[in-house]
């Protein structure tokens, strides 16, 4: 094969071409896995019903309940009538059309982007869609995964394909070694601050470099999850031994001969030497610090050691106006050190950071300590299975002894569709993905942080990293100069 060198994204795309577009028409792309939840599906099932169409591939479709579900008293009927109706609608639709559904109370119930990987359904070289923008999470496996609207949900249910326009590719290369206390979340927040919330529009991002290779699957999922916050529909990481080790043995992972065939194919997926990206971005992992947002979009972030920026310092008139509005909404003054900002709440959860490794990281910092007075701390596992796994490790006891709440699985306060919301004016350090106005509750103020920063903030009551704690399990160290030298070589 002497074909032109290709990127990972191009390879996966080409292997799913059902019909190549001509004269400006989009390509028709086959979808390997369709994840469904209660919020963006009712109108899609209605559409099928009206047109008399079945679900084309029930065996490539799976549903769970996550956005609306309560995280307390899950054995009781859902108190909010509209939430209850929406969940009942999903149950009715799943029964009528024959879709596999994991309901509240089921061990596989949880945030749709935690459930797919946990079941071993998410794997390299496949296409994954869901009516949820954070579907980009699954790109961590070297899958092409992106969020779609409800009309497209109906389209995939009916045809198992989507008409899609070709995309551009962007390499985001992160070289070096993260210092202890700096995590995948800090990488992606720094990337978004660098390229902006529109910087990835029209691109599929591929995260590369030694710092990405060194990450666990959980860390890679955190990074790909927030690709959408940079405007990119999808983010990807090439599959490697870390990917295979995570996947092997999971319920729906290939077995026997299928596993060998799959690995042989997956090994061909990483971007070829000499392949050209349409854009490239570089980030130095060695000097990266814990990162935090100060504004009302995920691109408005700084290192935790910095201060709230002065809107006047922004060259672009729109950026300046957005910063002024953000500071007003966030009730912050330019020049205030980020570490002086007090919080009312800490939210540890969401499809960005609610997997077992995230909970372990959070627990490792809070263990043996108590939370700051007056701060409400909520810990929400990503799935029922993660919750059970955490309890087997004693994490629930650490969380409860700390003074935090240990909840059942779901999207929870990431978007406040269920009762888990901020009150107007409340300020929250959140491991979720969006700091938009009112996202976590009307009038609520969100600072996006890593699980480690969330833990340290819960202890001190002000935005903090583990580096700021007395007798810290993760003290500050110097940037790794050795790795930096290697990058230059």
């Amino acid at each position, binding site marked *: 094969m002497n074909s032109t060198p290709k990127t990972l994204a191009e390879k996966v795309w080409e292997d799913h071409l*059902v019909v190549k577009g001509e004269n400006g028409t989009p390509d028709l792309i086959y979808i390997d896995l369709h994840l469904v939840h209660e919020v963006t599906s009712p109108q899609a099932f209605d559409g099928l019903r009206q047109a008399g169409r079945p679900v084309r591939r029930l*065996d490539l479709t799976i549903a769970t309940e996550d956005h609306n579900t309560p995280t307390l008293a899950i054995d009781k009927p859902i108190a909010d009538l509209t939430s209850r109706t929406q969940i009942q609608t999903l149950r009715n639709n799943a029964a009528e059309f024959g879709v596999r559904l994991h309901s509240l109370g089921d061990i596989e119930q949880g945030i749709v982007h935690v459930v797919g990987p946990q079941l071993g359904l998410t794997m390299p070289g496949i296409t994954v869609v869901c009516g949820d923008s954070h579907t980009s999470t699954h790109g961590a496996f070297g899958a092409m995964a992106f969020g779609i609207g409800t009309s497209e949900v109906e389209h995939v249910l009916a045809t198992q394909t989507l*008409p899609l326009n070709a995309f551009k590719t962007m390499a985001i290369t992160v070289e070096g070694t993260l210092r202890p206390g700096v995590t995948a979340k800090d990488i992606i927040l720094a990337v978004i601050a660098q390229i902006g*919330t529109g910087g990835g529009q029209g691109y599929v991002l591929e995260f590369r470099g030694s710092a990405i290779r060194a990450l666990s699957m959980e860390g890679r999922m955190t990074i790909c999850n927030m690709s959408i916050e940079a405007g990119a*529909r999808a983010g990807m990481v090439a599959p490697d031994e870390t990917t295979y080790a995570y996947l092997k043995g999971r319920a729906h992972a290939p077995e026997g001969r299928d596993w060998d065939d799959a690995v042989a194919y997956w090994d061909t997926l990483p971007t070829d030497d000499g392949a050209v990206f349409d854009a490239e971005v570089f980030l130095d992992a060695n000097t990266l610090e814990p990162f935090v947002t100060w504004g009302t979009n995920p691109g408005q972030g700084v290192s935790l050691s910095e201060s709230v920026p002065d809107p006047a310092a922004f060259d672009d008139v729109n950026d300046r106006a957005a910063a002024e509005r953000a500071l007003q909404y966030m009730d912050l003054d330019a020049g205030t050190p980020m570490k002086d900002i007090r919080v009312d709440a800490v939210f540890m959860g969401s499809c960005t950071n609610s997997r077992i490794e995230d909970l372990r990281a959070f627990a490792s910092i809070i263990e043996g300590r108590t939370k700051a007075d007056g701060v409400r701390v909520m810990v929400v596992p990503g799935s029922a299975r993660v919750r059970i796994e955490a309890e087997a490790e004693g994490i629930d006891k650490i969380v409860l002894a700390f003074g935090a709440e240990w909840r059942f699985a779901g999207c929870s306060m990431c978007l406040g569709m269920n009762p888990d919301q901020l009150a107007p004016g409340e300020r929250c350090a959140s491991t979720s993905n969006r700091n938009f*106005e*009112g996202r976590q509750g009307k009038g609520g103020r969100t600072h996006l942080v890593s699980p480690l920063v969330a833990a340290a903030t819960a202890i001190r009551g002000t935005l903090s990293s583990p580096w700021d704690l007395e007798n810290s399990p993760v003290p500050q160290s110097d940037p790794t100069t050795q790795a930096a030298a290697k990058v230059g070589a």
Partner: protein
Amino acid sequence: MQKFTSVTGIAVPLQRSNIDTDQIIPAVFLKRVTKTGFEDALFHGWRQDPEFVLNREPFTQGTVLVAGPDFGTGSSREHAVWALRDYGFQVVLSSRFGDIFKGNCGKQGLLAAQLSEKDIETIWLIIDEQPGVEVTVDLIAKTVTAGKSGFAFEIDEYTRWRLLEGLDDIGLTLRDEARITEFEAKRESWRPKTLPAR
């Protein structure tokens, strides 16, 4: 979907950047299971402010929204498009759109027309000078006319064709059903299957 050719109506200036879909329609309204009736939810947070543009005449009658860059970023919720449509908007003009939002617009007959940032600012000035000015958005010519000024806009040709013809995507795709079946026959057995549940 109805055929879209051109729209003439009052232009509403929304002079903010990064208007994410959480602002267009807060999550609390996503619990509904219907596809219509979202007009009350549009910009719900901002509409509590009496000075918000949609609360001021003549903009309450607007059909063309003229927004700052990065309109419709964030969540994939198609409810954002339904809310704009139900309120009466037929066109959104911006210099940059969130990808998923832009795609959703095309499925629902809402025209997301992309102009340069400079042209958007010029249109804002024209509205500022003549509030209530009617603009015409012509999908055949790909132009916006505001007062005496004309501007060209961009839209991908496929979406434009589908809007002009009022075509249903699923129907179009199913014309290729034989190709889909052919593709499925060649899929490798290692690829994921949700059934039977394991």
